[in-house]
């Protein structure tokens, strides 16, 4: 009787176990194949059918994202924090040795831990490279833009105009200030005359957004310097910006004022896409020395941007909510566009305190002064007041710019 019972038990669990095992192997193999496709493999993209896209778009993704954000802003009890964040780190591959805060209990919730900072020096900046990675993540795709079409995956493109808005080059006029350096190699003193523009001596303060615009060396009263030291934020131009640092200004101006003799015919438009996985450090940094002149906030959808969806949804980056920062670097036009996703709907730009993404209907109506019609819109602002000489907000290579928040 015992043997008969044992045999029956064996039969009972053996069949489902084999089914589960085979299914897991099949799903694993399928996922690996899909990931390879999403990363630009040789296989052509298999785009979702229109009814699948329609079905996906009916999901209240923005509401879900905001709810997810609120949920992750709930303060966790002290006993739960350290084991909870360690579990998250184990699952998503966070290197806790790099986290700036050693005591994980100081992060009140997952939202704070997700937006963690890193210890100084753990991300050395390659000073020799023309372009460095702006974020921790995976390079999904890069290349040259032909005929204004950016390749999303193999064989599928989207329009550059749709991504950044119409005529991005027009928003970044060529730098044409008559400029003279006093001493290029000298460390600049913000209280000392820095440059002469059209015969007028300028100080560093006046160039990076001081209150007086310019100050004559002999007749200036020094008010701009005193005021500049006291004020951290100030409304300049169309948006409120944080005052740029003298160090960033020095680095960027030295780089941008070097002559670029490359003829236009010898230039091309390049692109690169970096995907940040849930466990990655979610702040982004400046990839080179450049000046951001225009910010365009496209209030779109919040579809997932994982490699799987990138290989399934055409025009994904033009549909999702994003903040396009447009400007110029030494070689011409430069732009950086953080794109939101369902779990990280909020994009923060640290020097632009007016920017609000993944907002509710009520907030949009209050702050944008227009009736919400549910359609995707582009809100444009300029950073022209941030640096009078450079005509925008200077961003030094490796400088922290902003990040993504949960929800």
């Amino acid at each position, binding site marked *: 009787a015992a043997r008969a019972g044992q045999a029956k038990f064996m039969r009972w669990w053996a069949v489902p176990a084999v089914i589960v095992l085979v299914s897991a192997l099949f799903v694993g193999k399928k996922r690996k194949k899909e990931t390879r496709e999403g990363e630009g493999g040789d296989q052509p993209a298999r785009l979702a059918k229109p009814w699948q896209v329609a079905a996906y778009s009916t999901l209240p993704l923005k509401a879900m994202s905001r709810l997810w954000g609120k949920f992750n802003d709930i303060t966790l009890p002290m006993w739960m924090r350290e084991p909870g964040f360690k579990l998250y780190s184990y699952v998503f591959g966070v290197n806790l040795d790099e986290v700036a805060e050693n005591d994980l209990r100081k992060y009140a919730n997952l939202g704070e831990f997700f937006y963690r900072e890193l210890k100084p020096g753990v991300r050395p900046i390659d000073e020799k490279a*023309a372009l460095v990675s702006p974020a921790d993540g995976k*390079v999904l795709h890069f290349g040259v833009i032909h005929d204004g079409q950016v390749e999303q995956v193999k064989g599928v493109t989207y329009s550059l105009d749709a991504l950044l808005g119409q005529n991005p080059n027009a928003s970044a006029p060529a730098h044409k200030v008559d400029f003279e350096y006093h001493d290029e190699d000298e460390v600049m003193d913000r209280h000392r005359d820095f440059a002469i523009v059209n015969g007028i001596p300028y100080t560093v303060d006046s160039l990076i957004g001081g209150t007086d615009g310019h100050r004559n060396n002999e007749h200036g009263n020094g008010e701009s310097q005193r005021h500049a030291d006291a004020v951290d934020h100030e409304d300049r131009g169309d948006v409120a910006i944080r005052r740029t640092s003298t160090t960033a200004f020095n680095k960027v101006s030295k780089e941008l004022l070097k002559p670029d003799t490359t003829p236009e015919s010898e230039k091309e438009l*390049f692109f690169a896409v970096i995907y940040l996985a849930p466990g990655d450090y979610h702040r982004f940094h400046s990839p080179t020395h450049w000046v951001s002149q225009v910010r365009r906030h496209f209030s779109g959808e919040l579809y997932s941007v994982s490699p799987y969806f990138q290989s399934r949804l055409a025009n994904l980056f033009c549909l999702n909510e994003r903040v396009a920062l447009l400007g110029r670097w030494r070689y011409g036009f430069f732009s950086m566009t953080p794109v939101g996703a369902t779990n990280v709907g909020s994009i923060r730009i640290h020097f632009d305190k007016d920017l609000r993404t993944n907002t509710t209907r009520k907030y949009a109506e209050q702050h944008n002064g227009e009736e919400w019609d549910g359609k995707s819109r582009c809100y444009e602002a300029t950073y022209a007041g941030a640096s009078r000489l450079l005509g925008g907000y200077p961003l030094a290579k490796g400088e922290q710019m902003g990040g*993504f928040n949960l929800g």
Partner: protein
Amino acid sequence: STVVLVFEAPKSFKFVVEAGESVKVGQAMGVL
């Protein structure tokens, strides 16, 4: 989340990463 870079550069610009490669902040992506 994703970051998309679009920029003008001389034709001699070369990416020094591979598609699918993991990168860290500050790591070289392109040289001239």
